[in-house]
């Protein structure tokens, strides 16, 4: 976590506030003024069809893409105004689980997990680093894979290792980009359970991008439905399930 006390100064109960975010690609407006708030300790699912701009939205939140308009406030910081150094500090407090896992395939699992620590927690001794790596892998049930290469693991195991790497800096917010896509229903459910366990154990706030309704049901405290670049509907799983809106109903039928 960031150790600069000034960095924690402006936080409130809303850990992420997104207002009027717009983003276009070659004239195609994907986000047309999307707004939402993520409260401390909650898991917000952003539900939407493939290509609706869900991944674009969280990539804007983590600073991988720059919105054309709007403001994004993360842990009290307007990320569009942050310097590169401050953005890097903020990124230590925000974990990101990529849809493709994005494990460094030239490194072992241990090196993958050590990678962010070697840069941000240089005061840790080798024993402390090792302790953290083992603890993070134990959290996801894969302590025995520590010296394997990512290519030696199954898709589900890679997802767990990627999650362990996301946890290694003990982030306050975790962004999950379609965490169960490409996994079989049982492994998908295990990953969903893991997301809930992590949320309960570390009290993280999370945004889950998904269209897998089993994952949505298991993880969501609240759901925002993204349609045509705006927040089309909002509510809990049960509220949306009871909706008579034809578009919303399609997700639950």
């Amino acid at each position, binding site marked *: 976590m960031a150790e600069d006390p000034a960095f924690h100064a402006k936080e409130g109960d809303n850990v992420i506030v997104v207002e009027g975010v717009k983003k276009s690609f070659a004239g195609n407006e994907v986000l047309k003024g999307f707004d939402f708030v993520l409260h401390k300790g909650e898991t917000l699912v952003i539900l939407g069809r493939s290509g609706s701009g869900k991944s674009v939205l969280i990539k804007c939140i983590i*600073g*991988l893409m720059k919105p054309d308009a709007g403001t994004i406030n993360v842990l009290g910081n307007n990320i569009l105004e942050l310097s590169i150094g401050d953005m890097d500090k903020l990124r230590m407090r*925000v974990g990101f689980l990529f849809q*493709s896992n994005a494990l*460094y*395939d030239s490194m072992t699992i241990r090196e993958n997990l050590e*990678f*962010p620590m070697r*840069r941000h927690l240089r005061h840790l001794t080798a024993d402390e680093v090792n302790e953290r790596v083992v603890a993070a892998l134990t959290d996801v049930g894969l302590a025995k894979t520590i010296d394997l290469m990512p290519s030696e693991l199954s898709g589900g195991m890679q997802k767990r290792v990627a999650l362990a790497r996301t946890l290694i800096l003990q982030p306050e917010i975790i962004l999950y980009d379609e965490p169960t896509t490409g996994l079989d229903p049982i492994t998908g459910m295990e990953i969903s359970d893991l997301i809930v366990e992590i949320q309960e154990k570390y009290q993280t706030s999370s945004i889950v991008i998904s269209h897998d309704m089993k994952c949505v049901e298991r993880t969501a405290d609240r759901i925002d439905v993204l349609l045509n670049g705006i927040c089309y509907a909002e509510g809990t799983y049960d509220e949306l399930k009871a909706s008579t809106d034809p578009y919303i109903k399609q997700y639950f039928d």
Partner: protein
Amino acid sequence: MKFSNSTKEVFNEAGEIAFFTGRFFKELFSPRFEGREFLKQCYIVGYKSLPLIGLTGFIMGLVLTIQVRPTLIEYGVQARIPAMMGLSFVREIGPVLSALIFAGKIGSSIGAELGSMRVTEQIDSMDVSGTNPFKFLVVTRVLAATCMLPVLTSLSDAIGIFGSYIAFNMRDSMTLRLFVSEVFHYLKFADVMPAYIKTYFFGFAVGIIGCYKGYYTRLGTAGVGRAANSAVVVSSVLIFLLDLMVVQITDLIGIG
């Protein structure tokens, strides 16, 4: 004056490579330096390329000596083979041959590695973990390529001259000591230095083009293959252009 689209693309890409090179120098001189990754890349780029570059140098020395021998015999100057091979290897064959092999092996591997890291979001992953991927991936690889090619070329020159000695002794007889002293007798500082200096530029060109092509890979796995391929093609062409420039410059200023 109107330019065709392909001409515009070439100029556009040249501009982007220039910008990429500018960023390399900016990042090179800003803290913090990724020393561990640099040493790892030196091992991969240098040590692991040595067998291939050494082998091609050896074969080239062997073949050239066998082929030029009959012509030199016609003029009765076969005793000049060590001098001729030494000069041609150190000045031209060694640097250019090593650089081209290096472009094929290292340029393509850098292009493919960074390209696959781009399409599998590993570069984005470094970014979100608060690591500067340009510094970690590009600066270390370009620097390793720049530093390692001169070393490889020197070794390739030595191995090539040894290959020439073996070929010479298949028909004639000369001790290794005499062969080497003949090589050095005709080599001047002005032959060695420009040839040595240009290998730094060749190494830099291979590194920067490989990284540029890989770092900006688009269009998924097909793009990775294209990045590896064009890294080799562009850096090979650049090696010849740089070689031409060096020859012109050294000729103009009267050395070599």
